[in-house]
C-alpha cells in the first residue's frame, strides 16, 4: 500500500477538490481518509454512504465533586492551564481549558477530583464509489485533533489493509494534526497557490514534511491568478529538487462542481479537470516508482 497525503500549509488552496478528483483518476483499489478533522469536507464531494460510526474518546477531563470539595484552592494554584474557575461559591473545571493532565487530582487533599472520559468526536466509516472513506466529526471547540487524526488513519489502514493506495486529505497548518497526518506516509502532495502567503506557507510545510522523509511533490492551484508568483514557486521547486507535477488554472467549473457535490473531473471537460488529469497521470508514474523502489 502506498500512502499519499494531500497537504498545503495555507488553508483553502484546494486540497479537498484535488483529493476528490485524484480518488476518481488514480488507478487501483484505494481507501480515503479525511484527516482535516476540524473542518472535514471530503464527504461533501464523494457522496458517501455511511456504514458505521465509532465514538472517539479524547483526553480525559477533570471533574470536581462539589460535595467533597473543601475549597482549599490547591487545584487552582497548581493548574497550569487556568482550567479551574472560582464561581463565587464553588470551584469548577472549564472543559475548554482542561488538558486532562491529572495534576489537580494529585494535589487535592480530599480526593474530590477525578478524571472522566469524554467523547470529543466520532469516526465515520463510509462507502463511496471509489472505495471506503474514513472521516470524523470533532466536537467543535474540542482539543486532541491530532489524536483523532491518528485514530482515523489507524481505522483506514486496519479496515482496508489490502488496498493499493491510501489517499489522505490533510489539514492546513504545520502543527499537531498535520504532523499526525504525515507521520508514516510515503509521499505528500503539497497543493499551493501563487500568492505571497501560499509561497511562504509552502516553504514552511515542506520544512516540516522533510523531517518525516516522505517523497515531496508540489502542484499549483489557480496558477494563472498570479503568474509571477507561479514562476517563483517553479524556480523554488527546481532549486529544492522537488517535482512540480501540476498547474491547475482558476476555473469557475470547480465551484460549480463543489456546489453539485462532485469532483470537478466528473463535470466534463473543463480547464481545471484537464489539468488535474495530467497531474494524476504524472502522479501515477511517481507513485509506481516509489512502490518499485521500496
Amino acid at each position: 500500500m502506498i500512502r499519499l497525503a494531500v497537504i498545503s500549509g495555507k488553508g483553502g488552496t484546494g486540497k479537498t477538490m484535488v483529493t476528490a478528483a485524484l480518488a476518481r483518476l488514480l488507478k487501483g483499489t484505494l481507501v480515503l481518509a479525511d484527516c482535516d478533522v476540524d473542518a472535514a469536507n471530503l464527504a461533501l464531494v464523494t457522496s458517501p454512504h455511511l456504514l458505521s460510526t465509532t465514538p472517539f474518546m479524547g483526553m480525559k477531563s477533570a471533574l470536581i465533586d462539589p460535595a467533597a470539595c473543601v475549597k482549599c484552592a490547591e487545584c487552582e494554584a497548581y493548574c497550569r492551564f487556568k482550567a479551574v474557575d472560582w464561581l463565587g461559591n464553588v470551584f469548577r473545571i472549564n472543559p475548554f481549558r482542561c488538558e486532562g493532565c491529572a495534576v489537580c487530582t494529585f494535589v487535592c487533599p480530599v480526593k474530590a477530583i477525578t478524571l472522566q472520559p469524554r467523547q470529543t468526536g466520532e469516526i465515520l466509516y463510509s462507502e463511496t464509489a471509489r472505495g471506503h472513506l474514513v472521516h470524523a466529526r470533532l466536537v467543535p471547540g474540542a482539543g486532541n485533533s491530532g489524536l483523532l487524526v491518528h485514530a482515523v488513519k489507524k481505522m483506514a489502514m486496519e479496515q482496508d489493509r489490502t488496498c493499493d493506495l491510501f489517499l489522505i486529505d490533510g489539514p492546513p497548518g504545520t502543527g499537531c494534526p498535520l504532523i499526525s497526518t504525515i507521520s508514516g506516509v510515503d509521499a505528500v502532495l503539497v497543493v499551493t497557490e501563487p500568492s505571497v502567503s501560499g509561497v511562504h506557507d509552502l516553504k514552511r510545510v515542506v520544512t516540516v514534511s522533510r523531517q518525516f522523509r516522505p517523497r515531496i511533490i508540489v502542484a499549483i492551484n489557480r496558477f494563472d491568478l498570479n503568474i509571477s508568483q507561479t514562476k517563483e514557486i517553479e524556480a523554488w521547486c527546481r532549486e529544492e529538487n522537488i517535482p512540480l507535477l501540476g498547474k491547475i488554472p482558476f476555473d469557475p467549473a470547480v465551484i460549480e462542481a463543489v456546489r453539485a457535490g462532485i469532483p470537478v473531473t466528473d463535470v466534463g471537460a473543463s480547464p481545471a479537470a484537464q489539468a488535474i488529469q495530467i497531474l494524476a497521470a504524472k502522479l501515477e508514474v511517481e507513485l509506481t516508482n516509489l512502490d518499485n523502489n521500496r
Partner: protein
Amino acid sequence: MKLAVASGKGGTGKSMVAANIAYALSQTGPVTLIDCDVEEPDLHLFFPAPSTTCDVTVRVPVVDESACDHCGKCGAFCQYGALTVLPDRILFFPELCHSCGGCTLVCPKYAIREEPRRIGMLGISAPLPTLTLITGTLDEGSPHAVPVIKEAKTQALGGHVVIIDTAPGTSCPVVEALDGCDACILVTESTPFGLHDLQLAADVAARLGVPAGIVINRSDGKDGETLRFCIDHDLEVMLTIPFDREIAAIQSRGDLLCRERPEWQKDFSALYAKCRALAGVDT
C-alpha cells in the same frame, strides 16, 4: 476592544480581513494586530518592517539521573506518554509533553526539575506609526501551537484596539485565540465547504460566548444558502466582498486592498463599527 477574525475553513480571507481592518483603523488611531495563526503566520508579508524577536518556551522536565531510582511514578502519572521509565534510564519525548508539571510533583526523590525549551518565537514590529504587529510563529516540527498563541496574546497593549487573526479549523488553536475576545468575525465563502465550516465555527464562537458576525468573501452572487443560514441563526452579514480578479491580484502579491483602493477603507471601518455594536461597546 479585542476582535478576532476566524473562519473554520482555511483560505476564506481571514488574514485579508484582519489586515485591512487594522490598516483602516490605523489611519485614525493606534491598533495592535496579532497573528495567532502561528502554524502559518502570514500577516507580516502584508506589513514588511524590521521586527524584534524573542523566544517562546515551555517548561519540560529534566531528570537528575543520580537521584532517580527509576521507580516509574512519573511515567505512570504522565497522561501524555511523554516519559518512559526503563530499569536503567528514562526516555523523554518532548513533543508529547504538555508542560503540566505533574512529573515534578509525583517524584518521591525530587529528582525532576524543569527547564525551558523553545517551541516558537514572537516578532514585534511597527510597520506604521499607529500600528503594532505581533506575530507568533511556531517552530517547524513543533506540534504545540497553543502556548505560542497564549504568549502572543499577552503582548497586546492595553487601551489599543486589538485585532486577532486566528488559525483555520475549530479546535484548540482557535479556542485559545477566541478566548477572552469581545467579538469575532467569521469569514466565509459561498460554497458548500465554506458553509459547512462556517456552521462549525459559529458553533465554537457560541460555545465560548463570543458574539459573532459574518463576512462573505469572494462572493459570486450565489450566496442564498449562506444568507439563509445566517438569518436562521441570527448572524448578521456585516460585509460582502465580491469575487474580483483585481482584489485577488492585490492580495496575492501581498498588498492591501485598503491601500490600493482607498474607497474600501470606509467599508472596513464600518465593519469594525458593526463589530463594536455586536460586542455591546457603543462608543
